[in-house]
């Protein structure tokens, strides 16, 4: 067991972030999300965009733009397009423009696209149900349900030729997509990587998390003693990763200085009391970055506001750090966006670093009694060099990323 604590990975080139794009319940761009974080905007509201018995009962972090409007805005002309794919296009479009990559660079054999998603085309719950029946006539969405379907649309739209891969490790998916993209660059298999994640709200996930009794009927309260579960959210975010030596003279937001994926190996849908998986992931990311725990200035916690996650994540922080650094969860702003969470929060960590500021974790009142950890609850300007971001998923899948100031 100790063996997995040691990770021999060392980063060869410095991997830097040169572009970002995001759409979430608190904004349609990086700038809008930044304003909302500063302004303590709560994006969690009633479900409005599709009919469900849970509308009005289980609040969600919903993007209030219809699919029709997204199709118009993004000038998409693809039959069988899903909301998942539309949100991905919205975010990737911003990231590519922001990165100033040329069309030639985007279409280069050396440009990889790594997308994470857990919902994929299952946002089309009713269509998928009908198409699964033997005698129904197939809908326009037959090829849209696969997790890899979004990437197939993106590949055509941007004429991509490099590695195009989709990762699904449940709620840690996009942290793993970012990590995989960085490793493609480190190994020389790609020169640059467009990495991120997307998930849209769906009857499928709302009913699933409700069946697990971890959906909250109230707005979620990460790390609060009285937390009552998570709110689902939707969104997408992409980063453009490049080697530092390739981007001389170009804007660099931050470096991706460490990463690790480890498994809790305890239960299909909850974390162990000892917090093994979260601990190994956080420790492994520090080892890759060659940093000590004391050098971490802030942790963007997974902080879903479920009974299990927030307790065990706190245990992991107490196990790794003598005194845990400042931490907070943005799930109180946008809800839990599942496969998009790691990438959305990567953008938020980079905003922390670029602006040298921390954003309030919303809806917190009282610390978990036995543990006593208090998240950041007010905006503040502060010096930040290294930030850790945690993502933990079903199947004990735990990933941590480290972003550093450049």
């Amino acid at each position, binding site marked *: 067991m100790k063996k997995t604590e040691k990770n021999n*990975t060392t980063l060869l080139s410095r991997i830097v972030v040169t572009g970002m794009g995001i759409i979430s319940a608190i904004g349609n761009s990086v700038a809008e999300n930044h304003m909302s974080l500063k302004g303590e905007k709560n994006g969690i509201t009633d479900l409005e965009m599709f009919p469900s018995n849970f509308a009005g009962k289980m609040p969600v972090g919903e993007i209030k733009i219809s699919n029709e409007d997204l199709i118009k805005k993004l000038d998409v002309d693809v039959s069988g397009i899903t909301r998942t794919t539309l949100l991905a296009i919205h975010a990737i479009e911003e990231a590519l423009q922001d990165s100033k990559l040329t069309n030639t660079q985007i279409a280069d054999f050396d440009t990889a696209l790594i997308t994470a998603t857990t919902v994929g085309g299952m946002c089309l719950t009713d269509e998928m149900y009908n198409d699964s029946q033997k005698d129904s006539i*197939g809908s326009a969405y037959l090829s849209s349900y*696969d997790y890899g379907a979004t990437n197939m649309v993106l590949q055509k739209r941007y004429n991509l030729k490099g590695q*195009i891969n989709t*990762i699904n490790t449940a709620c840690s998916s996009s942290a*793993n997509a970012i990590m995989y993209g960085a*490793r493609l660059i480190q190994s020389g*298999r790609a020169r640059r990587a467009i990495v991120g994640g997307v998930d849209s709200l769906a009857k499928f996930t709302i*009913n699933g998390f409700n069946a697990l009794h971890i959906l909250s009927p109230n707005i979620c309260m990460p790390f609060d003693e009285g937390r009552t579960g998570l709110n689902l959210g939707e969104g997408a975010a992409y980063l453009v990763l490049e080697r530092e030596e390739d981007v001389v003279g170009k804007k660099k937001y931050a470096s991706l200085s460490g990463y690790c994926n480890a498994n809790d190996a305890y239960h299909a849908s909850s974390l162990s009391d000892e917090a093994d998986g979260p601990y190994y992931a956080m420790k492994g990311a520090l080892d890759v970055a060659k940093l000590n725990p004391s050098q971490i200035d802030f942790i963007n916690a997974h902080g879903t506001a479920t009974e299990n996650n927030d307790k065990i994540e706190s245990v992991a922080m107490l196990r790794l750090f003598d005194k845990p650094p400042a931490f907070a969860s943005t799930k109180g702003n946008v809800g839990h966006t599942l496969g998009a969470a790691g990438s959305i929060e990567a953008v938020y960590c980079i905003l922390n670093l670029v602006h040298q500021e921390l954003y309030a974790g919303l809806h917190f009142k009282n610390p978990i009694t036995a543990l006593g950890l208090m998240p950041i609850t007010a905006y503040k300007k502060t010096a930040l060099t290294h930030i850790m971001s945690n993502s933990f998923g079903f*199947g004990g899948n735990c990933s941590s990323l480290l972003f550093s100031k450049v």
Partner: protein
Amino acid sequence: MFYIHQSSSIWTQENFAATDFNEPVDRKIFALEPAYQDIPPGILRRMGKAVRMGVGAAMPLLQNNVKPNGIIIGTTNSGKEDCVKFLNQIVDYNEGMLTPINFVQSTPNATAAQIGLLTKNHGYNITHTQLGLAFEFAAIDADMLLLENPLHNYLLGAVDDISTFNYNFEDKAGAYKKEDISTKNLYESNTPGCIAGEAATMFLVNKNAQNAIAKLVAIDTLHNEDEQILKEKLQYFIENNLPNGEKIDLLLSGENGDNRLNKYYTTCEAVLNETTSIVRYKHLTGEYPTATAMGLVLACTILQTQQLPTTIIKRKGNNVAYRNILIYNNYKAVQHSFMLVSIPN
């Protein structure tokens, strides 16, 4: 580059050399599932088919406390059966009180997670899901991990099952043949579509040549429908990865009887020497997104035995030995993969 030390499969046939095939029924060849003695019965009962096959194939490689540093799985279809069962619950019970078991099992990382859980493996645990390249990206991930950590060992695998549901999606989208067909007539059918297959295939891989059964020299992928780009990419792949003085002795072709894809295999064959032997295997495995994992098992078998079972031969060249095998696969025209597999030395 890495070495393959062991493989374990739950698949559609007893072995590649058999003459009495497990034939397709209604254009589906189902896997011959074992009794799963390595999985505790209480856990086995709750597993969906893909998870059961994946764990069942992995466990024999993880006996005697063999603990790889990570578990890397490629899959496209696993979880879909549970996914649609859960959708059925949502629709049938109108979003009422549902049981979460199908929901939890619907995530495609359930196989990698269950293997990790049953063997208490805290290492890297990942699931790649990019359709017909899911296994290749898992293999590339293993390759990169071994570049980063040359002393490590990894469990690399693939799993895809035929469920009523994913068969129906694919069938309506025109993936399968409309007519019934036997394995021996598959390649002469000259009709669109293939036959469905399923398997779970696991490998133990590392950087240690000693006692290895094969060496995966290189692996690459291409996303394109243009045969000319395929030709250039394949030539580049061979030139860059085949050592001087060596030749491709055998093409392990991913042909699946779908006449819409023949042009890609013809393009691939044209890049190779006319005396290169060619074998095919999808009449035995059926087609599914991670079928190349069984192609890799076949390559390992040929490198070890230096024999070509007669039932898989498309063209017998004048080889005296099989040292270098090219596995070429095309999935639905747009996804191509190349693996160069050689004898370990």
